[in-house]
């Protein structure tokens, strides 16, 4: 009776099952993805041509802020936690996550956190309007009243993330099947394991900085106010000490995903497994000493700028190792190009392009020209959309047969891929040009000279938005009426979830641990 499970709403409310919780995380993140995407559509509609057409500048700022917050904390992070929930126990041969009740709680905090955050849109003074980086004093002295709801919302999602991370660490340390040594774990488990440490290190820092904001706003402290002996730049140091590792929190699990998928469709083992592990760990460690590269213009001493410039450029080395290893995995493999593989290949290429602009931004003397322009917007969207989101999309296509026992329609999946690929580039590539031409980010209106690039980006964004609705349809079609999936749907796939479990994976798996050689 391994498939027995409760039914009705209480199944979802009370569940401690890692698969149910994983599904809820994934659906939640997809809903947030569409909500944040709708805000992006408002932004791109306003920027379609010069002049103010649809929204006033104040509301525009609310849209950019909420778009960023929702995509980072509501779409990307929960989608990664969803994948972790579904996959880590199956990959290491565990019956469930180590702390199932906490798992339930860490999910169920999220809908409340985002209800708080989204409700601010309907409040007097509007939603937070100071950018997702919420720099003081714009967010403290000058923030709208709803900022307090934002602070509480961030606290709640922080608690959720910390609990999720604790769960991953405890699970990986204690729940591995006999014989599953650390250096035998699938790359996805490794990348998440390292991500979990990053989360535990930095989410409390984020909690700290929003609490300091709260006391600055209401309890007479002056952490970020020079008039009381504080320093607005200290806010940025604390924020980016969280913010830079956060970037890797969003991307490392996606590294893990493509490190599973590329070998499967190359029918060849992942090249340089141990160097992949070490590279991931190095990226994570380096992420703690590079934060101020986001702040080259705040007036740091030149010695500080030199340190952060060089440390940042160093990250290119382990990241390069990863890219080279993926290429070497494909080299002389026996490649086929099903939808998950297409998304993974696009991930490698486009993420690398995002990495290139990252190296450019790391070079402080030229960063003075790129900083806070659309070049930065292009850079981080290249690592986030075709990076983190393509990674998750690839994972969904790859493991959907295992999760649901149903196959998606390959032809429809490929259409989804090619539309995404075209539109993602049409949206974000022109932003490099508008940035180089001198367009600052976060402006609702612009000079004629930026008009062509913005028009292309807007057209691309509308297409990209619609394509994601198409993704939803594809997935629902597969779940409702897809062909039955085989136990090992992909002939090159490896790992316990493919070798030791049927499709769909039963509700309870590995009640007795599998044997790993």
């Amino acid at each position, binding site marked *: 009776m391994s498939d027995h499970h409760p039914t009705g709403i209480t199944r979802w409310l009370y569940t401690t099952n890692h698969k149910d919780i994983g599904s809820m995380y994934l659906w939640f993140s997809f809903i947030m993805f569409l909500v944040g995407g709708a805000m992006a559509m408002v932004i791109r509609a306003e920027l379609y041509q010069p002049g103010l057409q649809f929204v006033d*500048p104040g509301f525009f700022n609310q849209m950019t802020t909420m778009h960023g917050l929702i995509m980072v904390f509501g779409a990307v992070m929960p989608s990664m936690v969803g994948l972790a929930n579904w996959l880590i126990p199956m990959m290491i041969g565990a019956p469930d996550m180590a702390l199932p009740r906490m798992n339930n709680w860490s999910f169920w905090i999220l809908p409340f956190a985002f209800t708080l955050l989204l409700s601010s849109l309907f409040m007097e003074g509007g939603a937070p309007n100071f950018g997702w980086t919420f720099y003081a004093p714009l967010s403290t002295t000058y923030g709208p009243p709803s900022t307090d709801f934002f602070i509480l919302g961030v606290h709640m999602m922080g608690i959720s993330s910390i609990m999720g991370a604790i769960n991953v660490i405890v699970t990986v340390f204690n729940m591995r099947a006999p014989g599953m040594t650390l250096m035998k774990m699938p790359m996805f488990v490794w990348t998440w394991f390292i991500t979990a440490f990053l989360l535990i290190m930095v989410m409390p820092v984020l909690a700290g900085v929003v609490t300091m904001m709260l006391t600055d706003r209401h309890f007479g402290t002056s952490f970020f106010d020079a008039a009381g002996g504080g320093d607005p730049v200290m806010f940025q140091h604390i924020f980016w000490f969280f913010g830079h590792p956060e970037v890797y929190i969003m991307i490392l699990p996606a590294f893990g995903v493509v490190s599973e998928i590329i070998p499967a469709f190359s029918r060849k083992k992942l090249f340089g497994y141990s160097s992949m592990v070490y590279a991931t760990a190095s990226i994570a460690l380096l992420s703690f000493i590079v934060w101020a590269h986001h702040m080259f213009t705040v007036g740091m001493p030149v010695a500080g700028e030199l340190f952060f410039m060089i440390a940042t450029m160093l990250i290119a080395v382990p990241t390069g190792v990863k890219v080279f290893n993926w290429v070497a995995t494909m080299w002389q493999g026996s490649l086929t190009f099903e939808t998950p593989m297409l998304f993974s290949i696009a991930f490698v290429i486009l993420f690398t392009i995002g990495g290139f602009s990252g190296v450019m931004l790391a070079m402080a*003397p030229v960063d003075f020209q790129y900083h806070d322009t659309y070049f930065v917007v292009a850079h981080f969207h290249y690592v986030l959309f075709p990076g983190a989101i393509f990674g998750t999309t690839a994972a969904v296509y790859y493991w959907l047969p295992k999760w649901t026992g149903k196959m998606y329609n390959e032809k429809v999946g490929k259409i989804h891929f090619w539309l995404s690929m075209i539109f993602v580039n049409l949206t974000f590539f022109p932003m490099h040009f508008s940035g180089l031409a001198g367009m600052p980010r976060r402006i609702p209106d612009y000079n004629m000279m930026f008009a062509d690039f913005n028009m292309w980006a807007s057209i691309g964004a509308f297409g990209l938005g619609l394509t994601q609705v198409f993704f939803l349809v594809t997935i629902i079609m597969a779940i409702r009426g897809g062909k039955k999936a085989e136990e090992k749907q992909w002939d090159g796939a490896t790992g316990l979830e493919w070798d030791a479990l049927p499709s769909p994976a039963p509700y309870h798996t590995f009640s007795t641990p599998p044997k790993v050689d």
Partner: protein
Amino acid sequence: MAIRRKLIAGITSLLSVMLSGVVQAASKLNMRPGVTETSLEAYDLHMMVIWVMVGISVVVFGAMFYSFIKHRKSKNPTPAKFSHSTKMEIIWTAIPILILIYLTIPSVKLLIKMEDASNPEMSIQVTGSQWKWHYKYLDQDIEFFSNLDRSIKTDDPLYLLAVDNELVIPINTKVRFLVTAEDVIHSWWVPDLAVKKDAIPGFINETWTNVPTPGTYRGQCTELCGKDHGFMPVVVKAVSKADFKKWVAGKDAERMVAEKAAAAAAAASWDMDKLMALGKETYDLKCASCHKVDGTGIAGAFPALKDSAVAVGPVETHMSIVVNGTSKGMQAFGKQLTDAELAAVITYERNAWGNNAGDKVTPADIQAFKAGN
């Protein structure tokens, strides 16, 4: 250097044309080289890193696409077995390190140069506030606000890039900018000069430029600073040293005239109609973007003035808020407006939209208030 730059520019524009087809003019696709020594060097560094990245792309993506074609299942049904090569891994760790060293050396040199604001020939204090810049020439007795020129229409090439008062500096002079802010963080950027420095309230940042060629160089605020962040351009006009002297003399004369006018205004008699007329004009121009033309404000962000306790309460409080600003975000207008304008706008706020304080404030009252401050 010049030849290399020309060559690089040539290749870039050729490539750009190919990339963009007929849609874009080639020059629009790349960073502008700018005019100063540092901006040209930054441009060279930018081109250098771009070409390094293009080179790496060709190798890495080339290998990938070769693999897609030659190693697909139909061509290569039996995959190779290797999954490790210490030699290769050492090579592709070492090569990026060498490339990074190659990129780091010129970056370090340029960075040190750009951050060296020592021995300036003149200094200007640049102060950002919501949503305008204030320039104060520390070596001359000149200071003024620089606001967006709102008369320029969307289809004008200068849309959002023109101001009422440009910052005028002499060419071939090392000018130091001391950058700070009144309220929130702003950032002062002129792309052609490769100068970008955050303006941080309570702190002073230093940056500099030395412009070799006369011209007008335009930029924008590059740190989100609230509602009208997109509407506070930076315009620097570099003129010959002789023209700069003339401009300074002109400004001195202007100041004398303004002082006389202010004294005359204070002495003149101000009846209610005159105050209300000037008050409405000033209010609509300076205050309405936050407090709204009808005085209703924006709930939660900018308080309403209509029926407000301030606007119909004690006049001293009202004057203090307008002249000195508040810690909650209201700007200090004491220096931005003339005494007559201040008096008129306060009078207007107390008597417009159904407010019925009934009293009037004259320029003399403002002068008395400022004196007692």
